[in-house]
């Protein structure tokens, strides 16, 4: 039953991914002009004389004079074979440029997600069970502050504190000596030393909202008849809360993975700038500004894929947790 459900969801993901790729390509070709236009603008700004014939030749070389649908098909056939095209600006294959950055982004997003869950779940449960207790008020207040503080501001504050009081090296994800070094265990340890700052920064606001979600959900479930039934059975208070209402209140919590994933990556752009993280965000922003369409397209497509995968993962988790979904 469960296997069939997962298979069905996977099959559905395929047309969804196709539609998403089309939209991604349409979006990056939507702004007026193309890379050549912005290239010409840069050239004329620096005083060079722009030769129209040369621009047209360039346009033809990159296939930019073709109609939209032809361009899309050239692009997508490449993508399917693993070739994301050439970045105009960097004059390098897109694949080379993005993989490491994407991998770091995903690592950062995953660590943040784990951090968020590990903090939000117990606090949410505590706040609901001890509603209006001092602990609840304290967590609620901290939560609202976390929710209201812009990430980049919090990043600046945390950086200042880390540097001024702990003398820690806070910018980037690696120390100087590992910057361009090949992957090794020591580099991994170094990454772990650096990654906690962005994780805490990115995690706080998500944690705050998840605590609220968990608290509200659990409050709805705590007075349901099945809780009374379990109590009448003789279960101890904490065991019954963890076994019954939490299990049901966690549903909407799990659904948040779907959107938390892409949000963590695209929402992290400003923080990534502030902390000068070598992740995907800053590069994507630059590519969009320069109308470097293949590079930007690859990023947007990967982000969309991440959302689709995130949704898939959360749907499968939901089905594992809640049999009612499985059987429909």
């Amino acid at each position, binding site marked *: 039953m469960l296997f069939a459900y997962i298979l069905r969801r996977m099959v559905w993901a395929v047309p969804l991914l196709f539609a998403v790729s089309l939209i991604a390509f349409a979006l990056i070709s939507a702004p007026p002009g193309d890379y050549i236009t912005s290239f010409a603008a840069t050239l004329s700004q620096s005083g060079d004389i722009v030769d129209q014939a040369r621009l047209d030749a360039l346009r033809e070389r990159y296939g930019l004079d073709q109609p939209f649908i032809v361009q899309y098909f050239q692009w997508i056939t490449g993508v399917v074979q693993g070739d994301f095209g050439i970045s105009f600006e960097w004059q390098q294959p897109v694949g080379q440029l993005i993989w490491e950055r994407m991998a770091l982004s995903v690592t950062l997003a995953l660590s943040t997600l784990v951090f968020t869950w590990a903090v939000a779940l117990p606090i949410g449960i505590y706040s609901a069970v001890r509603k209006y207790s001092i602990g609840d008020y304290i967590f609620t207040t901290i939560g609202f502050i976390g929710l209201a503080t812009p990430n980049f501001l919090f990043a600046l504050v945390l950086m200042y504190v880390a540097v001024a009081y702990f003398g820690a090296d806070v910018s980037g994800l690696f120390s100087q000596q590992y910057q361009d070094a090949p992957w090794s265990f020591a580099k991994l340890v170094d990454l772990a030393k650096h990654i906690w700052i962005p994780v805490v920064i990115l995690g706080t606001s998500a944690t705050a909202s998840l605590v609220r979600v968990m608290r509200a959900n659990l409050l709805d479930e705590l*007075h*349901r*008849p*099945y809780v*009374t*039934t*379990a*109590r*009448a*059975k*003789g*279960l*101890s*208070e904490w065991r019954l809360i963890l*076994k*019954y209402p939490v*299990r*049901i209140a966690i549903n909407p919590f799990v659904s948040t993975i779907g959107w938390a994933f892409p949000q963590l990556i695209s929402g992290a752009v400003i923080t990534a700038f502030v902390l000068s993280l070598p992740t995907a965000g800053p590069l994507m922003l630059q590519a969009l500004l320069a109308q470097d369409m293949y590079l930007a397209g690859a990023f947007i497509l990967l982000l969309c894929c991440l959302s689709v995968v995130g949704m898939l993962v959360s749907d499968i988790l939901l089905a594992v*947790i*809640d*049999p*009612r979904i499985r*059987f429909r």
Partner: protein
Amino acid sequence: MSTTDMNTKANTTVLEIKNLSTEFVSKRGPFRAVDDVSLELHAGKTLCVVGESGSGKSVMSRSILQIVDPPGRVCGGEVLLHRHRTARGMGEEETIDLLKLNPKSSAIRNLRGRDIAMIFQEPMSSLSPVHRIGDQVGEAIRLHERVSKKEARERTLELLRKVEIPRPEKAIDQFPFEFSGGMRQRAMIAMALACNPTVLIADEPTTALDVTIQAEILDLIRSIQKESDMAVLFITHDMGVVAEIADEIAVMRFGKVVETGDVYEIFENPKHPYTQRLLNSVRELDRPSERRLAMREKRPVGEPCLVSDGVRKVFGASKSWFKKEVSGGLVAVNDAYLELRTGENLGIVGESGSGKTTLGRCLQRVHDVTSGHILYTNASGQELDLAPMSEGELAQPWRDIRTVFQDPFSSLNPRMTIGQIISEPLIVEGKLSGSQIRERVYELLELVGLPASAFMRYPHAFSGGQRQRVSIARAIAPNPRIIIADEATSALDVSLRTQILDLLLDLQERLDLSFILISHDIAVIRYFCDRIAVMYRGRIVETGDTEEVCTTPKHEYTQSLLSAVPVADPRVRGQKQRVRYHEAT
């Protein structure tokens, strides 16, 4: 004589409740939900606690095990469990005062579910939807006894077999939502019986079930009680059920016990005026209203005004894109032929899922009809077929045919004042000016017996019965000719049911209305309806004069339905032969 009988004769008191009080603390000060209640439970006997909603009977039962939800708090009294008198006792004197134990202590947790077990009203929501039946039942065993997982599973299977759940090997790994209501309640009972409790507290265990299933569950409880000599505290508002199973009765009102006694004594010789009134309203219901009979003498029933001719309604059918045929789906109403005559009250009776509500909605053409005709004769005598009509054409018929719904709590918008609620259909109609509408609403309020001051107030300020009056006022606002009352009295206490039905009769006389009353409650139909249609699985299996059908039912299903209805007289207990109906497949 068996040991069970001996114990029953000996009248062993196993649980004593002395001066129990429970308070709900709010900002306006404490409210006593249970006030100085003293009761005794005897081994092998059933004590029925009767009372209307809000009488504190449920809170009282929860106070025994100290599982009242906050802000409720047990504030006085004693609950003595005489453990030495039960099978679990070690021979020496062992009396535990449950109220002295900390509600979170392991001492009271060990007694919960082992010595005293509970079953609840809503079998749907009282079981966790995401845990398997076997897990939930087996948990009760593993909590109180040191047994291996395998052993617990064996015992669970045995319990499921005992409560007559078919194919227990499969059922044990199923989820509650795969079960019907009756099966869920059986699983609840299995869970309660897991550790052979001395006392079983059953809080309205059959209220949410159909009568035929109710009869089976009552049988089950009774047979288990006989086997194990369990004392049962049975909470209900249904006098029929009380007459069926009680040995002793306690009547509760406003948190106090007003009368206790032997079942025969209370039914034949009630002392407290409240008990008398309660019994009267039950007895009044089970026969035709004299008022209605008198009304029919004066003004006989006329020609058919709403006819359902071969109406069929299929839900979730997948229509093929190319062909016009319909396949699959759930047939909710199957070729229903029914006619309502002017000035008549027609009852549609059936169990849950029989399609009675769907038929009602089809008749009003709120639902589309898959096939068939709905012939409505309007005020000018013209016959219209409502089935193929578009929304625009239905505007007038919708004013003529109106509905009163079951739940007076959720069918009124809590953010609208009573005045706004009642005037809404008039505003939609758009015939009257603002001040005329206001006048009409005051007139309607008076008609349904509500004070004019209700106009500016919100629904939450009113009781269930008063809210149902508001629903009725809203229904009759645009001068309808037909009212479809869908379980309009089911959510109300017995004493209020007759009041609402009398109000409907009153309106019928004044406003020349015809009624369709949809109900699962035969007593209500018998009181109110001239004719009755019995529905079973989407089909109308029998129609006829109410008294005729009730006294000499022809179809086997009607017979089984009637035989399952508990009669509010303990003397006829066990004399009625129950007929079970199984559809030939």
